[in-house]
């Protein structure tokens, strides 16, 4: 097995692992800039704490449940418990030799496992107890993320060979987006006084976060080729083009509808583009990436406009950007996938294979359903054990930085 080790692949995946890790501070800043100044530390911490919680769980059992061969195609087993059998040698996953150390593959996958629950936090800012949040992401990581990662990527998983998800559109974005919707509905709306100023407190912070996310996404998507090869280059180009196109189209939509192209709109569009290209990054052509990026702002912006009609309080629009953007990405992969780009993939609808689209929609709906139902179950389990997941109305009014963490982000008195 040692003969299949490839130094270039290993170097690229090492770098990609670090790139994906940087997306977590990026996400933290992206979200934190959109909140009010009294909740900014809490929002930052909801992302950062995932680095600790999920990493430890991943080492103990998360990786094993996600990637080892289980007794059914639904969940992995315990072959990799405490990283047993996970060593410095390359290994075989679903018949393909992975030419980097198994430990490195484990670490690369860990970064995806960290960011996914953190994505959910954007839906519930300003009102969830930090203790409840930590318990929630721990349970979600094992009960929702691990099975879903196993379905799509794990040894003998349910969708292996039936649906395509290059870098986690289904596992990461659809699952977190629909979980975010469920949690926002269950927790209820923020308590805002009439006309309370709830504008984003620091959009430059959000734009820095957007830049870090875009940068890290090259590792997320191009790193998912798990090799330093042409496919990695192709995935990097599709990723970049989708983000660039989506940022531009979102600006144009705003130019027409609210007459001003906003910084937040650009940031939202770029991230929605990155979400949408994720499942197809290694299966579609650059031209298809532009089409995918051009459509997603209409999907996400449209959903945000509908939100005000439905009245749920997904504060930072995780459902619209990740849930709906991810759904479009899964469907788009079923339309545009091209075996000429990646011989390990399948052709999509426009290349004469409507079957893939069925697989894409099925896996997307399973991820959406598992996220929504799993989140609901976890919510009620925590509610039964601890009575409530919400801070008191007084604490909500005072802000979560002071009441949850005993700190103030911006001290102006000294």
């Amino acid at each position, binding site marked *: 097995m040692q003969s299949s080790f490839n130094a270039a692949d290993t170097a690229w995946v090492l770098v990609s692992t670090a790139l994906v890790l940087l997306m977590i501070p990026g996400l933290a800043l992206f979200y934190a800039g959109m909140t009010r100044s009294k909740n900014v530390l809490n929002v930052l911490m909801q992302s950062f704490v995932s680095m600790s919680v999920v990493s430890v769980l991943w080492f103990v059992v998360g990786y094993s449940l996600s990637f080892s061969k289980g007794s059914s195609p639904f969940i992995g087993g315990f072959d990799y418990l405490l990283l047993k059998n996970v060593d410095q040698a390359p290994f075989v996953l679903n018949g393909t030799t992975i030419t980097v150390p198994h430990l490195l593959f484990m670490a690369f996958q860990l970064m995806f496992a960290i960011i996914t629950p953190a994505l959910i936090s954007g839906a519930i800012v300003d009102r969830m107890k930090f203790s409840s949040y930590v318990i929630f992401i721990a349970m979600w990581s094992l009960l929702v993320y691990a099975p879903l990662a196993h379905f799509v990527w794990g040894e003998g998983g349910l969708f292996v060979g039936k649906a395509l998800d290059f870098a986690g559109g289904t596992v990461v974005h659809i699952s977190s987006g629909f979980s975010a919707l469920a949690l926002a509905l269950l927790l209820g709306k923020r308590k805002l006084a009439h006309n309370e100023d709830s504008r984003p407190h620091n959009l430059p912070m959000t734009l820095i976060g957007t830049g870090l996310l875009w940068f890290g996404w090259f590792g997320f998507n191009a790193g998912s080729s798990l090799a330093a090869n042409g496919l990695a280059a192709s995935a990097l180009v599709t990723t970049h083009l989708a983000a660039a196109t989506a940022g531009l189209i979102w600006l144009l939509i*705003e130019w027409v509808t*609210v007459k001003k192209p906003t910084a937040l709109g650009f940031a939202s569009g770029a991230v929605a583009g990155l979400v949408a290209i994720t499942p197809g990054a290694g299966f579609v052509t650059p031209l298809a990436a532009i089409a995918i990026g051009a459509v997603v702002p209409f999907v996400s912006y449209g959903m945000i406009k509908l939100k005000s009609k439905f009245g749920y309080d997904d504060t930072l629009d995780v459902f619209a950007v990740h849930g709906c953007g991810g759904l479009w990405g899964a469907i788009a992969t079923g339309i545009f996938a091209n075996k000429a780009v990646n011989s390990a993939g399948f052709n999509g609808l426009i290349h004469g294979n409507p079957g893939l689209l069925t697989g894409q929609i099925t896996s997307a709906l399973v991820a959406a359903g598992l996220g929504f139902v799993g989140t609901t179950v976890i919510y009620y389990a925590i509610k039964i054990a601890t009575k409530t997941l919400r801070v008191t109305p007084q604490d909500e009014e005072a802000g979560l930085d002071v009441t949850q963490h005993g700190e103030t982000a911006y001290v102006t008195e000294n």
Partner: protein
Amino acid sequence: MVKIEAVIRPQRLDEVKTTLDDLGVTGMTVTEVRGSGKQKGYTQHYRGAEYTVNLIQKIKLEIVCEESMKDAIVNAIANSARTGEIGDGKIFVTPVLDVVRIRTEERGKDAI
């Protein structure tokens, strides 16, 4: 002695300050304030959601002076703060009973 309180547009502060310097007025207190008046709030759009801002950022300038200087200072502020649009602000003049310079305990006009 009188206190002149002027609520002005933040972007006019430098101009007002320069004019007061020319008049020889060196003592003043400047605060960032928010308020509402005839100038209605404004609306902004964040991700398509509309936010109305009713309290508008202003600068409050406080100057204590001898009564003889009052009209010159008030005119200087008004002329340099004016844009002609609604929202230029207001100037209030009130009597001041006493002034104390903390360092020397001087009182009244000597302490200004």
